[in-house]
């Protein structure tokens, strides 16, 4: 037996190819949406990997530092270092802000500025790999930027009031929101994050000075002390902890919680926070798109196959008159629908692969997603052909004989 569907497609391949291309672009968008979701999940994993931490110590009752604001005193890490199982502990700050190259406002970028303790390899918080330049070694006014900022080695960038020289470049260091990271020394970052501008300091001094609680007659040293305390920046967002090999993260986390009254998250818990709290809404958003795109694709396939079938009603009546089985006719329509889906899938997969790198955020096209997509496409095409099949099976073979 010959393939009726195949012969019909070859006979009118133009309309199949064009319809397949249109459908393919839709499928390409669908695969890209899935890729965007996978990219976000992967970015989150990379974010955690790059931090080099086994434990995140944050302000009690917060989901910091990525999902919620968290503020800690910057001397807490010393106490943590003394606990058994802790190998390293380092302060870190995170703040998303606008960063721009000096004198080139057009290249301003939104970036996650990470304040890290300048130091050697293996310090938690430091970027783990550099693609160019060197790591932060001085205490002030140096920056390591992610490639996706577009900043160049040796360039000066402005963050708040100060200029920083880019001394190193990293790849794929982005926040969970997709903003590229810029690493600067911790002290500078604390100043950028917590220090008030001059006017604010003057106003605060004034308000403190008029408060009778601080400004006591005969005791001027109280006001001095309060003012000094107010201008010091002593906060960080989190302490990143690296454990000794073999230490149990849950046990050390429990110790820190008990003795220091702090929030502590293990790698697994932090991953859960990123997935469930930060990505969840975007994931649902993407899922909605996937559903709508699937419906639109199904409608298109159904409409096209139905139209093509209506165009063949006479041939179908003849095929039935000369004794073709209903099953053969149904198979012909089903195969055409699936053929259309396969053309669409190939076009879509190709298109998605081509345009994925152009997206501003990371798009991760997983082969398993493509396989799942193929399955869904075939299913949708099969379902979409049912309407056309029903119409074809209702054709009366007597119609071929006429009135």
């Amino acid at each position, binding site marked *: 037996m010959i393939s009726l569907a195949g012969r019909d497609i070859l006979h009118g391949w133009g309309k199949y190819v064009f319809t397949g291309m249109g459908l393919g672009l839709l499928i390409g968008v669908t695969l890209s949406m899935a890729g965007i979701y996978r990219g976000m999940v992967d970015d989150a994993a990379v974010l955690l990997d790059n931090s080099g931490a086994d434990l995140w110590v944050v302000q009690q009752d917060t989901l910091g530092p990525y999902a919620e604001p968290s503020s800690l005193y910057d001397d807490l890490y010393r106490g943590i270092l003394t606990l058994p199982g802790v190998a390293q502990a380092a302060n870190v700050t995170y703040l998303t802000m606008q960063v721009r190259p000096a004198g080139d406002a057009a290249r301003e970028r939104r970036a996650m500025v990470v304040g890290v303790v300048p130091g050697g390899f293996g310090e938690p918080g430091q970027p783990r790999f550099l693609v160019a330049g060197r790591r932060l070694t001085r205490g002030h006014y140096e920056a390591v930027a992610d490639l996706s900022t577009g900043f160049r080695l040796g360039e000066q960038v402005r963050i708040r009031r100060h200029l920083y020289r880019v001394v190193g470049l990293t790849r794929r260091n982005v926040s969970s929101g997709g903003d590229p990271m810029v690493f600067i020394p911790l002290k500078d970052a604390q100043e950028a994050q917590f220090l008030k501008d001059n006017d604010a300091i003057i106003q605060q001094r004034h308000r403190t000075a008029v408060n009778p609680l601080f400004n006591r007659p005969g005791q001027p040293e109280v006001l001095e002390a309060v003012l000094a305390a107010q201008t010091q920046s002593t906060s960080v967002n989190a302490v990143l902890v690296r454990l000794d090999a073999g230490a149990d993260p849950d046990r050390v986390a429990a110790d820190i919680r008990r003795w220091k009254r702090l929030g502590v998250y293990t790698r697994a818990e932090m991953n859960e926070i990123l997935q469930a709290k930060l990505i969840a809404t975007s994931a649902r958003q993407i899922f909605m798109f996937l559903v709508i795109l699937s419906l639109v694709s199904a409608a298109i396939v159904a409409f096209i196959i139905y139209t093509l079938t209506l165009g063949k009603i006479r*041939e179908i009546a003849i095929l039935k008159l*000369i004794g073709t089985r209903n099953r053969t006719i149904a198979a012909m329509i089903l195969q055409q629908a699936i053929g259309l889906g396969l053309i669409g899938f190939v076009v879509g997969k190709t298109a998605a692969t081509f345009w994925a790198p152009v997206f501003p955020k990371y798009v991760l096209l997983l082969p398993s997603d493509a396989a799942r997509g193929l399955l869904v496409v075939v299913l949708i095409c099969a379902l979409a052909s049912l309407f056309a099949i029903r119409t074809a099976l209702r054709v009366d073979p*007597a119609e071929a004989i006429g009135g």
Partner: protein
Amino acid sequence: MADVESTPGEGIHIEGLRKRYGRGETAVDALKGADIAVAAGEVVGLVGPSGSGKSTLLKCLGAVTEPSGGRMTLGGRVIYDEGWRIPDLRALRRDRIGFVFQAPHLIPFLNVTDNVALLPMLAGHANADARARARELLEALDVGHRAQAMPSQLSGGEQQRVAIARALVSRPPVILADEPTAPLDSERALGVIGILNRMAREYRTAVIVVTHDEKIIPTFERIYHIRDGRTHEELGEGRMST
């Protein structure tokens, strides 16, 4: 009719065939008792005014519409008998009835050979066998040189000959032709009737030609007139000389 063996049991026979469309007040009796007997190898005409029941009779003979009553045998097998019918009309159409239409109605996406070979393929014969049989018939009908062409590349006369090859390919005991010459000029119309006569004899097939066509009516030896749902047999003036 010396060259036609009128063996009982061959060809197609109907007796008292009736067909009523609808029920109650609006019922239409399209056939009120049709009697036809066509022997293997014989070609007969079926004529009648519009609305007389020609199409209905053709649909009953072609096993796509069930008659309300009467009897039909085809190649010796009982097909209908007063409300009873054989179970698989579809297979009967595929294996034992050839159809030729006014417009050739070839499948546009199959080439000439496969249009003809489709029926045996549908019946489960190997593609190569089916195509060999198709080519043999196409040669016999003088369209062997167009075997690889698509239907849209053929002239009207060529298409009709391919359609006749398709009708013959299963060696059916009967061919039903519905206005097969309507779109053709006089010469080609007579050519098609000549072919049908030749094939009827060669393949021992009974052929019923429904027609209005004044050009070909004189060629039939026997003609069934149908008027108001009833058939009347008449001797025709014609005899195809071959």
